[in-house]
């Protein structure tokens, strides 16, 4: 991974009163999504990053073969998630009784009574939203990786995938597991099942995948290919 932090941005002309015609065509311009600063972004070399000079938001960070890698990593994540759902997650032994629980059990424990809403929320945050995001990324980026035209409704699907990002809380769930382990340490003996490790692998892969995600490149490619 070559990560030069070098700024490849060139600010557009600083003329005090911008006239139409003085600026390059809008296709060559990028407005920082965070602070609206205007840039004329030349082709940024693969493997380097362009940051906004003012707010340091990463504007673009193209990587070689990024689309293919994201699709493969997202596919791996889907498989790991399916394994994590159905295999035993934690094993608890207390007073001679052993109890295995899968993530499904964690979600379904509240499925009746006043905690249904909480069950749905927990299920959504740790399973459904991460899974939906992986599938959405595969749907949008697989045709891009092959150089095909975008899939139907790829634009709203990718927008949705972006929206889901802060609500996918797999990594927070891992920390929750660690805290829970310590909380019951005095009460019972807990051991980690295979699904836990699948889940940890999934979190790590998601982190790697996000380093390949250059939103600007994806949006631009979607736009160009749909024409």
């Amino acid at each position, binding site marked *: 991974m070559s990560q030069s932090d070098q700024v490849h941005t060139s600010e*557009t*002309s*600083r003329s005090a*009163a*911008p006239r*139409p015609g003085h*600026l390059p065509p*809008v296709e060559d*311009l990028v*407005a*920082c*999504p*965070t*602070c*609206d*600063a*205007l840039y004329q972004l030349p082709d940024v070399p693969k493997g380097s990053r362009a940051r906004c*000079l*003012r*707010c340091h938001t990463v504007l673009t960070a193209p990587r070689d073969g990024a689309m293919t890698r994201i699709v493969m990593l997202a596919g791996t994540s889907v498989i790991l998630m399916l394994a994590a759902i159905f295999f035993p997650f*934690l094993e*608890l032994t*207390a*007073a001679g*009784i052993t*109890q295995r629980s899968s993530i499904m059990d*964690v*979600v379904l*424990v*509240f499925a009746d009574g*006043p*905690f249904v809403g*909480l069950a749905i*929320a*927990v299920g959504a945050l*740790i399973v459904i939203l991460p899974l939906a995001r992986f599938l959405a990324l595969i749907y949008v980026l697989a045709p891009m990786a092959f150089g095909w035209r975008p899939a139907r409704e790829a*634009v*709203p699907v*990718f*927008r949705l995938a972006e929206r889901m990002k*802060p*609500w996918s*809380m797999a990594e*927070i769930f891992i*920390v*929750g*597991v660690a*805290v*829970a382990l*310590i*909380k*019951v*340490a005095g*009460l*019972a003996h807990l051991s980690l099942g295979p699904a836990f490790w699948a889940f940890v692998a999934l979190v790590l892969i998601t982190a790697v995948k996000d380093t390949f995600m250059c939103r*600007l490149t994806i*949006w*631009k490619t*979607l*736009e160009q290919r749909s024409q």
Partner: protein
Amino acid sequence: MMTARSAGLVGCPNCGRVHDVPAPGRCQRCGWRLPGHAPDRSLQRVWAWLFAGLVVYIPANIYPMLRTNTFGRTTESTILEGVVDLLHHGSYGVALVVFVASIVIPIGKFFAIAYLAISVERREMMQVHARHRLFEVVEFIGRWSMIDVFVVAILAALVQLDFAATINPGIAAISFALSVAFTMLSAQSFDPKTIWLDGDMRPR
């Protein structure tokens, strides 16, 4: 610093595509709603979600988060009592994690978002760069408050050993989860561009 706005153009807040004026209602590339058509209500949304988050945060701290039943004896513990419990067991590190995630971050977030929203209306406060930093921290760190909700869910799922021990969630788990969600929505409604408006050249 020249901005899309000061150049008389409209930049998409989602993908950065620049549009000529008059801009379409939605971004031509990503379909995001572009500013400048309907009156901007983002600040009202920020306050509304923040208020909702604050309202449900109060019962989250008063009512029990966890109901533990060991050998027929039931104990209930609130968020703070959970932290104290961990301290008693000598798990100082974990106690700190839970304390920060469930108490420091939520309360800090209420103040931070309120401060950011107020400073948009009154311009002379903290430096723009510091405010931007604060916004990034709030956005990044807010979701981690959900830890305690997951802990409760995991414990309740695992510890169902009939007579020996059962753990059930308390009503505070719901209001705390809602509080985290509402404040996340509040932070997401905040438009970071308003932080920078001061330094921009205003369109004539």
